């Protein structure tokens, strides 16, 4: 009787021991997993840190400026491109009346259109790239929106298209998609890429491969 109960207790103790060991080994396994995960996390954090540094390095303003000048037709914003409120932006004219408007206009004012629209717009807004000129010409009869524009604009309504104030609105109205085929100025349709000065193009391209290595080489190279 006593032997039996002792056996039972012994068995229980053995079972408890086995479970204990089993649990202990499971915990050890988990701990190893945790340690390896922690190592991975630290490695990832270091990688993130490096990538952040690289991101900032690649976002260096002077580098971005060079890239923007090389690859984009965008220019720094100018004070005259700001309007006081969105209500002042002229609405795009309805497409139907626009089409017949062109030929009579060209005929009526030969002086103003003789060199094509681009030529007229050139003296009005020299720093503005000529890209957007034709689209604006038509779309901006309501030029007084411009802040520094001369307030005398509304005098001429239909041909007002060619007046300086309208031309100044050019960059604003750029996305306007008025149909172009009637325009007598083919050169305005050329892509803006050829506007980039040659000197800009020749600037050394930023390193393309292994920028991370290049960056860390900077770190290690000098000490």
């Amino acid at each position, binding site marked *: 009787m006593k032997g039996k109960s002792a056996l039972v207790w012994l068995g229980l103790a053995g079972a408890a021991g086995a479970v*204990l*060991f089993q649990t*202990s080994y499971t915990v*050890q396994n988990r*701990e190893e997993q*945790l*340690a390896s*995960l*922690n190592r991975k*996390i*630290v490695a990832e*954090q*270091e990688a993130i*840190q*490096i990538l*952040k*540094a*690289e*991101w*900032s*390095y690649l*976002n*260096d*303003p*002077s580098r971005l*400026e060079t890239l923007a000048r090389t690859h984009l037709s965008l220019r*720094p*914003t*100018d*004070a*005259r*491109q*700001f309007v*006081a409120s969105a209500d002042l932006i002229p609405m795009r004219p309805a497409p139907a009346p626009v089409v017949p408007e062109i030929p009579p206009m060209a005929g009526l004012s030969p002086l103003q259109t003789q060199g094509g629209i681009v030529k007229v717009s050139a003296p009005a807004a020299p720093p503005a790239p000529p890209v957007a000129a034709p689209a604006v010409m038509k779309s901006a009869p309501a030029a007084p929106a411009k*802040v*520094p524009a001369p307030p005398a604009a509304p005098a001429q309504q239909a041909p007002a298209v060619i007046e300086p104030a309208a031309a100044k609105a050019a960059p604003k109205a750029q996305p306007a998609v008025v149909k172009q085929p009637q325009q007598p100025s083919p050169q305005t349709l050329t892509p803006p890429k050829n506007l980039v000065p040659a000197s800009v193009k020749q600037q050394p391209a930023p390193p393309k491969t292994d920028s991370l*290595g290049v*960056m*860390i*080489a*900077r*770190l*290690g*190279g*000098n*000490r």
Partner: protein
Amino acid sequence: MSDTRLGYDPIGAVYASAPTMSKPRSSLSVALEQTRNRLMVTAAVVTLAFTAIGAKLVDATLLRGGAEPRQIQAAEAHAPPVGRADIIDRHGNLLATSLATASLHADPKVVIDAKEAARKLVSVLPELDYKDVYEKLSSEKRFVWIKRNLTPRQQAQVHRLGIPGLYFEREERRFYPATQLASHVVGFTGVDNNGLAGIEQQFDKRLRNDPTPLQLSIDLRLQHILKKEVAAAVEEFRALGAAGMVYDVNTGEVLAMVSLPDFDPHNPTDLDENTRFNRNTLGVYEMGSTFKIFNSAMALESGKVRLHDSFDATHSIQIGRFTISDYHGKNRWLTVPEIFQHSSNIGSVRMALTAGIPTQRAFMQKMGFMRPTPVELPENGWPLVPNPWREVNAMTISFGHGISVSPMHTVAAAASTINGGIMRPATLLKREAGAELPGERVISPQTSEAMRRLFRLVVTEGTAKAADVQGYIVGGKTGTADKQKGRSYSQNARLSSFVGAFPMHDPKYMVLVMVDEPKATAKTYGYATGGWVAAPAVGRIIKQIGPLLGVQPVDPNAPEIIAATAINTNGTVPVKGSTVASVPPPRTH
């Protein structure tokens, strides 16, 4: 029952030994007892040994006694893996960060074949010198650095060589993504990552102990524009150097600070000391005519001088060995706005003397010219102030000579004259939005408003027309100071500066450009004064930073703008339009 178990249970026998005593002792029972006792002792010893082993086993396996401490916490997902905190600009762009790298060191005692090891090492790290490495590896030391801060690729290559006795150590390396752009502000660290200059030195403890990034008031975009234009001015006028700042007049934050020539913070040590010199804060200069800002504010604030008062600028003033004269003398009586507009030294002296010498000294103290600026840089110069403050000092100080202050002093003080009259301590740390701004009133709002009009007058009718920018109502004051060479002033070495602010109807930002020893060019008709050198640069800077700062452009001819910014030369404020005639081309002192 106990009797029946006696023979079987030695342990039971111990307790049950009493009854057995009653039995007669035979040699057999004695031998049995002896054997039992021996068995018991043996069993006890064995039990003890196994218990000890078991206990140790449990300790080693279950309790992991003696093993390394267990990791019970997951690594924090957002904690930076490096020790030194980042420095970021006001929009969160990185200015300085730490990267983990590996450094290679060796234990020469463990290196078996130094010659072979050195040859292999040089093959993967070609920048190392074979002889040097060989000497290091064959030395008697137990620790030599081979190369600090390897790239991951180099580390892998060295690892693959499998040379015994070479070890890697994880190190941190400070990295400045903006390189030279903000080097004077951010500063640099040494090999062991201790700050040696700039913010890195000033906030060394903070950067070590607090892993959250330190946010500066600097705006990297403005910094770029400022540096580009200041560098262009240095190149155009073949100057020795230049300083430039963009400053928020209402909060006292420095938005950009450039000092040329500058340096690469990754490699600051083998450079000319001159490149590390921060002209904005450490350099103190006789600022010249820009001091007329403070002279005018002081005279108006004293109440003894009013805007429409006139002063005799007919003849030059003789005092001691000095003669005070005007460059472009009008040789007539000038009103206060005219003195400011034409930058008349004689008129300024008369204004200062009218206000009184003690008043002047007290005002200059209020402007912060008697102590270093509160800006958070270790490179912070003490102003050179005359002591005692005699009449001759008062006279020269009225037009910016005889007192040397840093450009930072000048900007912070000039901002206080136009922002409504509150002196804000200059800072390089971003101020929290909505936080209460420290500051003390130095002049009345009325004087400040008059100063705004005077600032604007210099740009519309005075010496700094080149600084005007369509849409951003610019105002300011030029300054051209002859530099002291030995005991006398040089006629050809100058500091040309311009302190500009915009928009003048509601001043928000101030821009300072100061060019050291500009040489006149044909384009400037032989002039190298503040109006010709610094003012156009400030104009170009404002033109570019205005849109970035979100300043609403306005029509300069709008009646409300004119009413808010214009002043007649007779000292009256016009209601509509200005009636002032134009003035000769900029030539100022």
